[in-house]
Structures are given as C-alpha cells and as structure tokens.
C-alpha cells in the first residue's frame, strides 16, 4: 500500500530471521488476478490485496502476513487464506487480525514457529522505531501534498522523498532515524515552490485503502497536483493506528449535530473531516471509496448534507476494478473548472 512497505520491511527484517522480499508493485495484472479469485461483490481492496498476495507467492514468497481491521476488512485475512490454500499454494499465512481482533499471543506463537530466536523485547524496540518512522513519513507526505502541485523542478519532491525512504531502511536506531528525518525535512522544505497565496485547495477523504494506494485511485493526487491544487488528506497509517483512537471523541462532539453513533471503519472520521474542511472554507472536497464499501456508503449522504449547508462542492468517486480512466479525468477536469470559476466569482462578489 503506497510506500508503507518500507517501514513494514524494516520492522520484519529486524525482528525475524527471514529473507524479506520487496512486494511486487500493484499493476493492472494484480487486480486482474485478484478479481479472478475473489467473490464478485466483495469490495475492491479485497481484490487488490488478494492479487498482491498471489503475485508475491509467484515471486517465491512462502510466508504471507496480512493485517486488517475496522470494517469487514478485519475478516478478510481468513477468507484470503482459505482462497489461497484452495488454489493449492503451500504457504505460511499469518493473520495479524483474526476474527476481527488482534491476538498478540497467537501472533507471538506464530512468529516463534517461523523463527526460534524471535525475541519479544527487541521486537518491541523495533516496533517503536517503526511507528516513529511512519510518523515521520506521514509528516513529510503531508507537506509534500500541500506543495507538490507548485514545484518548479518536476519530480524534486518525489525523488527526495524516495531518497529519504531508502535512508530510512538503513536506520540503525532511534537517534539515527531522527537525524535522517531532520536532514531530509530540511532538504524538502528547501525545494523551490511557486505557490500563489490564493491557490485552489481540495480535501480528500474516504475509504482508507483506496485513498492510500495510488494505483487503486488512478493516481488521483498526481492528477490534482498537475492542476496546481493544494491537497489536504487526513487518512494515513499513523492516523489510523494512533491518532484515531483519541481523536475520535473530540470529533464525535464536533459532529454530534449530524450523527450520534460511530458508523464503523472511518465513516465518522470522514464526516468529522468534512465538517473541519467546510469550516476551513476549503474550495472543494473529493470523497473516494471502493465499490461496495458499506461504511462509506452510509457516510455519503451525511457528507453531502454538511457540504450543502456550507455550500462547498463535493465530488464522489467510486472506484472498481474496471473504471476507465477517461471518465475519471472528465469529472476531475470539470470539478477543477467549477471550483476555479466559483473562486473567481466569489472574489468578484466580495469586491463589489
């Protein structure tokens, strides 16, 4: 999922004595394989992850680790394990989440089975480094997202970011990680941007997998950046793992006018973010989800309502395995035209 294979690889390579293979990049072949072996009406992330798992088995991986959580995604690992075993692949399958819950004891035993020297204390140490790494990655990503549409030399941000990620992989410890982060933070902030004061700003909300894996959203953020738009996004791994838990209470308060209960997965978060973005007077909101994503389907009418109240346009995208890119581009282009004209008009009105 995006660049998050780097912290995952870092963690696993330090706690287990196994050879960690780089995951195969998601391509159109991945989704083809995934769709072939998935139940038809399952949501698209299931198809992507199943496709990725099978592609990795074909690249000679023999241990697969699947995480999950939130919605029905929490039960995907079991189903995928069964599909893969039914296909006749002989692999070890480790579910970080089983039956919707994380069972640390079970995971410990499974790791112990793979590697006899598996040590819980050193693993915890590396786990902390990894979470810090994710934090830094997401921080840098947020900055990049705000500015990448305005970079003067193309690919500056992308290349520097990649450099940083490669350096992260070789981190020796806490302090080293911090030093690398400081160095690249400086470097990235120094990249020249040509950002006008009143640029167009768009917030992206929606289902977590589709948001974080660029292939599955047809490189939506790249497309927006090429239109010189500043992008705000809340959903990232750090948010999901650490911030969500203690932020949700405050967020529920902010939106108590609209919903009373959490609606599963990130639905409540997205509604709260909609409210936040509307209060910030953002120019537009893009909501993306995979087909058949139930929590988000529930959230959409409420998001629509909030946006209507604040007179902020929302664009809804539903991505499936076969949405043609042309249709997406048409809608995005029209959205861009619309928010641009709205902004110009607002300026004219305020001047009069």
């Amino acid at each position, binding site marked *: 999922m995006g660049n998050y294979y780097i912290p995952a690889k870092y963690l696993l390579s330090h706690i287990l004595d196994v050879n960690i293979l780089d995951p*195969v*990049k998601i*391509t*159109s*072949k991945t989704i083809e394989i995934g769709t072939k072996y998935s139940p038809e009406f399952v949501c698209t992330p299931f198809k992507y992850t199943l496709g990725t798992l099978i592609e990795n088995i074909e690249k000679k991986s023999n241990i697969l680790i699947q995480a999950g959580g939130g919605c029905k995604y929490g039960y995907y690992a079991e189903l995928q394990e069964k599909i893969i075993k039914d296909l006749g692949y002989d692999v070890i399958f480790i579910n970080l989440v089983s039956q919707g819950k994380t069972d640390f004891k079970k995971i410990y035993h499974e790791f112990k089975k793979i590697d006899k020297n598996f040590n819980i204390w050193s693993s915890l140490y590396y786990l902390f480094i990894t979470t810090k790494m994710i934090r830094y990655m997401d921080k840098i990503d947020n900055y990049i997202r705000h500015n990448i549409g305005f970079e003067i030399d193309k690919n500056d941000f992308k290349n520097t970011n990649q450099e940083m990620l490669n350096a992260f992989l070789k981190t020796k410890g806490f302090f080293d990680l911090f030093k690398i982060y400081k160095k690249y933070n400086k470097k990235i902030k120094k990249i020249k941007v040509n950002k006008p004061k009143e640029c167009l700003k768009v917030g992206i909300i929606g289902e977590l997998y589709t948001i974080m894996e660029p292939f599955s959203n047809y*490189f939506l953020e790249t497309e927006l950046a090429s239109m010189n738009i500043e992008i705000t996004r809340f959903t990232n791994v750090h948010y999901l793992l650490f911030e969500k838990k203690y932020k949700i209470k405050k967020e529920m308060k902010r939106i108590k006018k609209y919903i009373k209960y959490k609606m599963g997965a990130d639905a409540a978060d997205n509604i709260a973010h909609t409210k936040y973005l509307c209060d910030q007077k953002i120019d537009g909101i893009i909501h993306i989800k995979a*087909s058949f994503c139930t929590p988000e389907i529930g959230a959409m*009418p409420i998001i*629509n*309502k909030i946006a*209507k109240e604040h*007179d902020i*346009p929302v664009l*809804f995208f*539903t991505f*499936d395995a076969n*949405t043609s890119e*042309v*249709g997406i581009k*048409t*809608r995005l*282009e*029209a959205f861009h*035209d*619309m928010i641009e*004209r*709205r902004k110009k*008009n607002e300026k004219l009105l305020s001047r009069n």
Partner: protein
Amino acid sequence: MKNCYLGIDIGSISTKAVIIDDENKIILSTYIWTEGNPISSTKNLIKKIKGKLPNQYIIKGIGTTGSARKLIGLMLDANVIKNEITAHAIGTLSIYPDTKTILEIGGQDSKIIIINNEVITDYSMNTLCAAGTGAFLSSQAERLKINIEDFGKYAISSNNPVKIAARCTVFAESDLIHKAQMGYNKEDIIAGLCKSIVLNYLNNLSKGKKIEQRIVFQGGVSKNIGVIKYFNEILKTQVTVDENSHLMGALGIAILAKQNKTNKIYNLDLLNVKFETKGFECNKCSNNCEIIKIYKENKLIDAWGSRCGRTFNDENNVKS
C-alpha cells in the same frame, strides 16, 4: 470575410457539430451517428460542413468536447479541448442566461448541473454504469422493434405506464420482459420505460440537490417527448427543452473556441489525410500502461497513457 468558430461534440452515440459567428449565432449545425468510430464520423461530419458553409466565412477556432475530445482535438488541431460539463453549461447559458438547473441525458452518461449566477456551483454525473441513459433506451427500442424516434409518441399515448424497476438496467430489462409476457401492451411498457429513466436519473443524480427553475433538459434523450412528459409530471413543474437541445455541448465548446481564438485560420482539409491509432501495452515497467499511439499519414504525432512520462517513437521502443 467573416469569422466563425467550429465546435464539435463527439459523444458515444452521436457526433454533433455547430458553427457560430461572432454573435454566438448558430450558422449551421449537423449531427451524425458516431457508430463507434470517432475518427471516421468526424471526417464525415467535416465533409458535410464543408459543403454547407457559406464562402464568406473563415474558421478562426475549433473546440472539441465529449468522450473523444482529446483524440479529435489532436486530429483537428483544436485550440480548445474541454470536458462536456463545462461545455454544456456555457452553451445553455448563452441561450438561457437565467438557467438554474441543467438536466442532461446522453448516450452513455447523464449529468445534472446546478448553476447559480451563471456559474456552475455543483454537478454530478452518473457513476459506474450506463443505466438510465440513451444507450439503454435504444437497446430496448431495438428489442421492441420500434424506431427510437417514435419512442416518445408511443409513450405519451399511454395513460397507464407499467411499473419498471428504475435502479438498474439489468433489473429493468427483466422487469420489462416479464411485463410483456404478462400481456401488457407496447404503449404502456414504453411509457413505463420512459418513466423509469426519469426516476433512475432523479434517484441517482439529484440526491440532495435543489432543482429550481429555470430547468433546461438536454442531450439526445431530450428529443423523447415521453421522457419530457414524465419529468414535468414528477418534478411538478415545466422543463425547458430547446429545439437545439442536442447541440448545447457543441455550441458551448464553439463559444469557448471563440473566447480563446488565435490568429490561426483553419481550412478543414483533412478528408484525405490518413489518421490511425494503435493501442498496445508498454511492458517496460510493472505499470503496464495501455498506450495509444496516434499516426497522421503514418507518422507518429502523439502517444497517450503513459504514467511515467516516457515518450515513444515510431517503433514500440521507448525513446527516453
């Protein structure tokens, strides 16, 4: 000599062209079926236009819109290539400046555009499938063996439209077959279909949107008087349908071409120029992008679809 501007809207079902003068007045318009081949249909269209355009006019701008806008834009060297949502809004506003809502149902997509003070403030477009669009109506017309042009006439002659599931084309079709086997007559079934199109459209697109007067209904399906009837009935108001309702996209893009005109003069001499496209999958990296290469007189003029910004030369090889 007078200036004029050509706007072409290449949709999935039909290709429309409009030529306007400096006052946005339509000098001539024409439309033909796309038949799945935008290049040849555009050529036919240009042939038709060329014969009809009075001699005193020179073309100072070309704009393209619709699903094949990029391809045809490249072929005609258009000065404006814009999405159909913007084009439709501009076209409609040039005729009805007080428009607040545009309902548009075309061949494979449908959209609703909300306008406030002549600026688009909201829009939505159908998502995954082509349910409730012209494509569905024309396939049903085929099944019932009647001309799509007569569809509306049949529909308004019925007082008792059959109930048909509006949500999904596949369900609608099985409903339709069952009702026909049960013995409902043709008029009632067609009326039911027209009603289901309207219900489907309103269910899918107008969620949470205020539909206010003036409401303009356009796109190919707006030629169907049955659908108009049910829009009026269900919205409990009167929708405006222009006599050129199918040409609004082309008109809008012609206006945009006028606004962005350069000094270039277009002469439409492409009838004998050979255009070809070739699609292939680039296997240079794991992205496996689908690349379309466009050839003019066997010379490569452009290639699209690469995600990494590679350029392609005449062979399948990669240049950089």
